[in-house]
């Protein structure tokens, strides 16, 4: 059974349909890569999954249970939406680290707030901090825990952002072009972290322009164009032997650059 199942997602902004009947499923521990030219709706898809946008139509199932149904939108209170969000994590293109907090504080802020809301003991709070340190170590930043975002390179900031997302142990971790705001020489360190998550079978959705990386890492690839899933399948098929002319054209353009 798929961990995540998305059915017929539709989203329009004003009169433009940005997502048109997007459906896919993702088994536990697998990695899905979403590729497509800019403006094809990839970011919107991730934002819908994290409920930063409300889809106009469609349903989302997690672990076989209906999590979200656009038809019942009005019934979802703010608290309900927050609960739904806990299934997903999102790593933004431009990191969005909290400016006034250190790397470690960025990682622990939300878990600490949640734990304090549940009247956690001192030991539990310390465990959260300890876990935050472990996560930063895992992304190779044990020496930068006390640094503020402006004291970190883009690659380091993005790694903090990944640790921050992991701290809440989301079932599905989403990446929105995690390296496209980075200087080329800094993409490697971020991709390496994502690869290590992949090795530990973290369930992931990665929107990326790094086609070679997508090919290496993904179990399944979706190519989107103008809000529609045009082609999908294992990377050997979609990337190495695309059958749809639009996919072919996109990949050719990519190969040129």
């Amino acid at each position, binding site marked *: 059974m798929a961990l995540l199942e998305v059915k017929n997602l539709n989203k329009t902004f004003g009169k433009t349909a940005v997502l048109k009947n997007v459906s896919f499923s993702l088994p536990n521990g697998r990695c899905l890569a979403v590729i497509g030219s800019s403006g094809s709706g990839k970011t919107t898809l991730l934002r819908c999954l*994290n*409920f*930063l946008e409300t889809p106009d139509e469609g349903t989302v199932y997690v672990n076989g249970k209906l999590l979200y149904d656009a038809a019942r939108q009005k019934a979802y209170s*703010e608290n309900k939406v*927050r609960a739904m*969000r*806990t299934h*997903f*994590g*999102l790593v*933004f293109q*431009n990191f*969005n*680290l*909290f*400016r*006034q*907090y250190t790397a470690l504080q960025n990682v622990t*802020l*939300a878990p600490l*707030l*949640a734990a304090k809301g549940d009247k956690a003991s001192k030991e539990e709070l310390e465990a959260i901090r300890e876990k935050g340190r472990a996560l930063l170590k895992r992304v190779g930043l044990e020496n930068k825990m006390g640094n*503020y*975002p*402006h004291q970190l390179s883009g690659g380091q900031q993005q790694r903090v952002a990944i640790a*921050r*997302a992991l701290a*809440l142990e989301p079932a599905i971790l989403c990446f929105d072009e995690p390296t496209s705001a980075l200087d080329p020489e800094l993409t490697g360190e971020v991709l390496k972290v994502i690869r290590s998550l992949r090795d530990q079978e973290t369930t992931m959705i990665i929107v990326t322009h790094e086609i070679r990386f997508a090919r290496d890492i993904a179990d399944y690839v979706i190519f989107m164009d103008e809000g529609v899933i045009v082609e999908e399948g294992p990377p050997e098929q979609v990337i190495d032997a695309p059958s749809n002319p639009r996919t072919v054209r996109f990949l050719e353009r990519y190969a040129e650059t």
Partner: protein
Amino acid sequence: MVENVIKALQGGFLVSLELFGLTLLGALPLGLVISFGSMSRIKPLAWLTRGFVWIVRGSPLMLQLLVIFYGPGLLFGWNVWGGSDSGRMIAALTAFILNYACYFSEIYRGGIEGIPQGQREAGQVLGMTRPQIFFRVTLLQLVKRILPPISNEVITLVKDTSLARVILVYELMWEGQRFIKSAGIIWPLFFTGVFYLVFTGLLTILFRRLEKRLDYFTV
């Protein structure tokens, strides 16, 4: 003579200080309310608020003082403020608070709109509640952004308090000026100048300290 002058200036200074303090006390929060109004999703409310802010910011404070003080009586025969010192003080405060709240509201609005949406969204994605996002993420960044323009306005307010004399609020300048007529001396006026300088100087130092304390991060 000197004693009289000192006494008069002291009295005036206290009136100026009162005007200054109470204006801030009223205008800082009222400005936030007005800024919410001007950012409201209810369009007519937003337009109305912005129109009001435009009028207040676009006309002289002295004119507003005169209209608020004399307007009700002359237009409607309604003596709201009474004839006493405290009545005139309240009229002056009304004008000052409204005027400064409008200036502050624009500063707040700029500050709030300037904080990248991504900061709030990062909080949302991490399951934080709206109040948590406001108090733990947005607020301090907002304070850091608005501190410099707020400090400008606050320092302008110190000097603007002298306008209250047009409706016979006996603030510092009034008290200094009256010795020109009654005793033909101008030096009390120099002292008022020193008062303003010291006062604004202290505020400048205070604000610079506050800004320094928020130097550890960038927005």
